[in-house]
């Protein structure tokens, strides 16, 4: 069968094969998981069960249940002083993944360029390409903690056709986040260049050293920003597939159009569970964050002691250490480590061609696993 050229072009084949290798192996320790190792808090699961029992099994409005949208508006107001109208400025999506796709599809005309930091989450480039746009990758590295700078963005905007910037903080895969001052500098360029910012803040509650600042809360930024968030990371609800997009009315309207034809609505059971998360789940968020903070210190110290230098990530549950010391390409390093020591992690190259010298380690894992995998990596490096 003739597959679309656009899709054919997407295939990240080497990484896919490595993933299959990992999934086929038993008794390994995995530091390669991009989700919390906590199970969804019981009060949220219990609400999902209750909703099923009560017969909440129907479609909801395309935008999502009005009660949930109202609750999100209320939460954002109190948590971040963000004001979005639940009627017209909030759309419930099937995870931030869908929201990212909707954002670029609603915005881009063929050939429009989108700035994306590298490394970035794996879907950013592909969703832009599928939407007919052209990703422009802005390289970051360990020297400044993988931070995108205002100058870099400004310089990239000198070329024609740059319409939007995708940013994710705290970042998967680097854990990097930005302080308010750093974001304000970027905001200045955004206004100057009239860029639209697609701001993926799914890890916001896992920010460790300072308060998280939503991009749209910066002065004058509201009209430029599509704010994306969801329940997966803060509430350990990845399998519920629930996210949301907030932004100016016209963009949310456009995204809703696509969403109604392609997704119809997010699962009602997830939407019911999410209401419980917002109502009573925050205590669990605080508890989980505390635990991640401890593991972060544990793993960062351990890796630096092994000579795999890494910066102290400001958020999420990832570290992105340099593997220069191993003198191997990231995929080879990951494969060999898996075969010889049964430790799985994600090769840096999955997040961009410039990341050959790095791997992504997820510390959403028990102390015992972290301790044991550090020991095994040490053995591997000594060989």
């Amino acid at each position, binding site marked *: 069968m003739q597959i679309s050229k656009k899709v054919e072009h997407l295939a990240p084949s080497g990484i896919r094969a490595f993933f299959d290798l990992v999934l086929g192996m038993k008794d390994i320790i995995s530091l*390669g*998981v*991009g*989700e919390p190792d*906590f199970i969804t808090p019981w009060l949220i699961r219990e609400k999902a069960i209750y909703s099923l029992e009560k017969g909440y099994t129907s479609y909801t409005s395309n935008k999502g249940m009005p009660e949930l949208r109202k609750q999100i508006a209320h939460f954002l107001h109190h948590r971040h002083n963000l004001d979005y109208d639940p009627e017209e400025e909030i759309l419930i999506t099937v995870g931030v993944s869908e929201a990212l796709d909707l954002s670029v599809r609603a915005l881009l005309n063929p050939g429009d360029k989108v700035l994306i930091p590298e490394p970035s*989450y794996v879907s950013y480039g592909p969703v832009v390409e599928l939407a007919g746009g052209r990703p422009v990758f802005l390289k970051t590295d360990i020297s400044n903690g993988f931070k995108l700078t205002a100058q870099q963005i400004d310089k990239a905007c000198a070329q024609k056709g740059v319409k939007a910037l995708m940013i994710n903080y705290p970042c998967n895969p680097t854990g990097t986040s930005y302080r308010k001052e750093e974001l304000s500098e970027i905001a200045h360029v955004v206004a100057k260049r009239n860029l639209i910012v697609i701001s993926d803040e799914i890890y916001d509650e896992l920010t460790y050293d300072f308060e998280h600042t939503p991009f749209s809360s910066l002065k004058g930024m509201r009209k430029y920003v599509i704010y994306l968030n969801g329940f997966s990371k803060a509430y350990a609800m990845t399998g519920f597939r629930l996210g949301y997009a907030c932004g100016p009315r016209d963009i949310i309207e456009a995204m809703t159009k696509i969403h109604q034809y392609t997704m119809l609505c997010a699962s009602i059971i997830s939407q019911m569970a999410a209401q419980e998360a917002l109502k009573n789940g925050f205590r669990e968020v605080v508890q989980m964050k*505390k635990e991640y903070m*401890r593991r972060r*210190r*544990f793993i960062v110290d351990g890796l630096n002691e092994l000579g795999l230098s890494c910066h102290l990530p400001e958020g999420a549950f990832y570290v992105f250490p340099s593997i220069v010391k191993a003198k191997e390409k990231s995929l080879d390093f990951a494969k060999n480590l898996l075969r010889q020591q049964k430790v799985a992690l994600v090769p840096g190259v999955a997040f961009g061609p410039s990341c050959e010298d790095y791997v992504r380690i997820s510390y959403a894992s028990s102390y015992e696993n972290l301790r044991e995998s550090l020991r095994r990596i040490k053995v591997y490096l000594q060989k």
Partner: protein
Amino acid sequence: MDEILEVLENDARLSPEEIAKLTGKKIVDVKKTIQKYEKEGVIVKYKTVVNHDLMREGKSFVRALIEVGITPQKDVGFDAVAERIYSFPEVKSCYLVSGAYDLLVVVEGDSIETVSNFIAAKLAPIESVQRTVTHFMLKKYKEDGQILKKGNQTKRLNISY
């Protein structure tokens, strides 16, 4: 609560070095704080949570929760009687509680007979003890915050973005 206590409550086997890493404190400070807590009795002891239901060999294990009604005594209230009760090694826990009875006493032994004998011969005859209601424990589902059933771990894939 002090973070050192928080991590130790969850895993008593952590070394001071590891606790220092987890909490971002200095190793010497962690050691000092732990010693202080041990001395003050804030840290009482380090123990292992055992699921006796899964032990196939050795002695059997019986636990009873006993509600004890007491006549309080002048000046000392419940404390003197409580002391007489909790001093028996068979008593594993003893709490003064509000409500329909006064002391909740947890007694362990290797058979129903030993536990009943203890209640009949030692506990019930104490002067100020008015009455006892004994509940033999049938099954332990959760102890010290730990669900004892295996297989409730996350079911996530071993690798994902």
